[in-house]
């Protein structure tokens, strides 16, 4: 075992701050071909034989006194470089698995790690863990159903994953996510991210209203199982299919959109499955074909939302052609909603994604759908929110998901990206969407959603403003009450406050005049006395010191009036 550990243990990557540990590990372990391997080895250590590592540590670093700590450190360090490497290096399956394992272990390690690394590490760990958890889920689900066509595209990362996933979608009719659309879009123009966004958006739209569970369901759907997305996409497809029936949809859309959306999310299973398959293939084809007018799409998108709901209810009317429409319609809806509503927000992102996916073909058909703009607005808002979130998530995913190994992962990554935004936004979305489905609460939601993700701390610090100096009200109240010896109304205190402010203004003016008259720039006690004399407070009969003694507490009295104490001493000393 020791031998194996020694062999397996790779050189610690120099990335880790703990050079000592790394050096030790490097010395002890056999040379490692690459950082990855080393990182992997490091990871393996905790995964495989934490005990062994400790033993090896003991064995190798006799000088080290904190063996356990060093082991932790090494593990943590390995994780650190591992994560770093992940982002930089190509994703590999091994890395992925390692990351998964590491991610779970990372949390405890980071806690034990020194404080310097802990903060950023924990944050990353959390993200990583979430991500990995999601990835795992995806992997499990995808592996079950998906083909491994995308194996070759691991290098490209997300992009390739998207493409591959799209390709897969093409292959798997069961995939209902937008991916088919994305596939075409990504290939055509927009970067892979955008299609992801669009896909995620479409899926996100669904997930917006639904909880994270639904998202997972979608993920499952990717695996070709019935999922909310499928249902949604199917509904989308259905709606698209019914391009011909625009008129019908329009009528139905307005009243049903709010209902449908809820239903869509819930009901998808049965109707969509058969449809989804068909629609996907068709949608994919259609998506590639159509890219187009965002404005038109926006309308259509809105319509689509409503339509989708209807479609679900209407059940399979789906013609192949219609299925194509659905995805585009979904996209259009997104676009339309986005374009219509949230210009300031991450519309840029969304529109980009949507633009890529926008289906030009549907534009003419959907132009007629303007009515249900109101209802789909809320939906679109949500979608936008989702999209935005997804966009954010996608970026996160892209960075985190280095080891986007195979296409199997890609769909999960996409799903993950979709999931994460939905997952992250689920609570916020639920709050926003559930109470007001029709309400345009979305405008704030994307902002809200984005905020916590980006920089929550900055907001708090920037909100602080410099307060104007003023005498505390309590002090004024107390002093006045003591002097008045009578109950005073609350309104009267406001007036007293104003009087005191004016008094201080007068006071500063007078003091400045006196000091300037004396040829000085600093206000002295003599200036104050002159002021009080002019005020009529200090007279020949009433010296200043008497006033001081009367009104000021002892401490201040000692400071102001020199007192002669025994031993030839004067307080305060002059």
């Amino acid at each position: 075992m020791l031998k194996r550990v020694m062999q397996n243990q790779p050189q610690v990557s120099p990335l880790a701050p703990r050079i000592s540990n790394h050096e030790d590990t490097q010395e002890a372990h056999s040379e490692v071909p690459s950082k990855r391997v080393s990182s992997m080895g490091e990871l393996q250590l905790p995964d495989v034989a934490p005990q062994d590592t400790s033993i090896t540590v003991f064995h190798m670093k006799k000088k080290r006194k904190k063996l356990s700590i060093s082991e932790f450190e090494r593990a943590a360090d390995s994780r650190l470089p591992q994560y770093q490497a992940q982002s930089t290096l190509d994703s590999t399956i091994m890395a992925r698995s390692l990351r998964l394992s590491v991610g779970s272990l990372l949390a405890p390690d980071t806690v034990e790690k020194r404080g310097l690394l802990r903060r950023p590490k924990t944050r990353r760990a959390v993200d990583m863990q979430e991500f990995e958890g999601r990835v795992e889920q995806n992997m499990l689900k995808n592996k079950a159903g998906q083909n491994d066509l995308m194996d070759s595209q691991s290098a490209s990362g997300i992009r390739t994953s998207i493409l591959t996933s799209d390709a897969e979608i093409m292959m798997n009719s069961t995939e209902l996510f937008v991916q088919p659309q994305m596939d075409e879009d990504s290939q055509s123009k927009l970067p892979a991210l955008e299609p992801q966004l669009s896909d995620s958006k479409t899926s996100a739209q669904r997930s917006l209203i639904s909880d994270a569970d639904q998202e997972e369901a979608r993920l499952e759907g990717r695996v070709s199982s019935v999922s909310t997305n499928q249902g949604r996409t199917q509904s989308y497809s259905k709606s698209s299919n019914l391009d011909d029936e625009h008129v019908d949809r329009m009528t139905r859309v307005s009243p049903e959109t709010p209902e449908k959306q809820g239903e869509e999310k819930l009901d998808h299973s049965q109707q969509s499955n058969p449809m989804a398959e068909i629609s996907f293939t068709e949608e994919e084809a259609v998506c590639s074909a159509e890219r187009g007018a965002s404005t038109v799409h926006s309308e259509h998108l809105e319509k689509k939302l409503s339509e989708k709901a209807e479609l679900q209810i209407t059940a399979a009317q789906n013609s192949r052609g219609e299925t194509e429409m659905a995805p585009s319609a979904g996209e259009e809806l997104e676009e339309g909603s986005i374009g219509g509503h949230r210009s300031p927000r991450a519309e840029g992102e969304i529109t980009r994604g949507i633009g890529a996916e926008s289906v030009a073909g549907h534009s003419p058909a959907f132009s007629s759908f303007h009515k249900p703009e109101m209802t789909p607005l809320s939906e679109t808002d949500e979608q936008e929110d989702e999209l935005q979130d997804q966009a954010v998530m996608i970026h996160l995913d892209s960075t985190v998901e280095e080891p986007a190994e195979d296409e199997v992962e890609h769909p999960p990554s996409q799903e993950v990206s979709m999931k994460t935004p939905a997952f992250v936004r689920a609570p916020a979305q639920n709050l926003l969407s559930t109470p007001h489905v029709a309400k345009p609460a979305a405008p704030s939601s994307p902002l809200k959603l984005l905020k916590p993700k980006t920089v929550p701390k900055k907001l708090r610090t920037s909100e602080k403003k410099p307060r104007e100096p003023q005498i505390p009200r309590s002090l004024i109240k107390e002093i006045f009450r003591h002097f008045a010896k009578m109950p005073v109304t609350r309104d009267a205190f406001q007036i007293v406050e104003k009087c005191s402010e004016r008094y201080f203004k007068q006071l500063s003016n007078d003091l400045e005049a006196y000091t300037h008259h004396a040829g000085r720039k600093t206000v002295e006690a003599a200036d104050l006395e002159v002021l009080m004399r002019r005020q009529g407070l200090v007279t020949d009969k009433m010296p200043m010191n008497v006033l001081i003694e009367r009104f000021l507490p002892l401490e201040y009295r000692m400071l102001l009036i020199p007192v002669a104490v025994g031993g030839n001493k004067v307080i305060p000393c002059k």
Partner: protein
Amino acid sequence: MRSTAPRGTLRKILKKHKPQLRLAANVDLLVHLSFLLFLHRLAEEARTNAFENKSKTIKPEHIISAAKVILKKSRG
């Protein structure tokens, strides 16, 4: 009566009004003293006004009339 005076706040207020003016040590205590005396005079005047109105509590109008007089008196 309170045992501490808001020395820092007093300095800030003076600085706000006259930023170029500097304060010597413990001068803000004398400023606080003058403020106390001002409030004292204001309270006395308000009390007199309330008595004249035969009210048991000091009302804002009493204070307003009192402030007019005392502020004028407190001008250096």
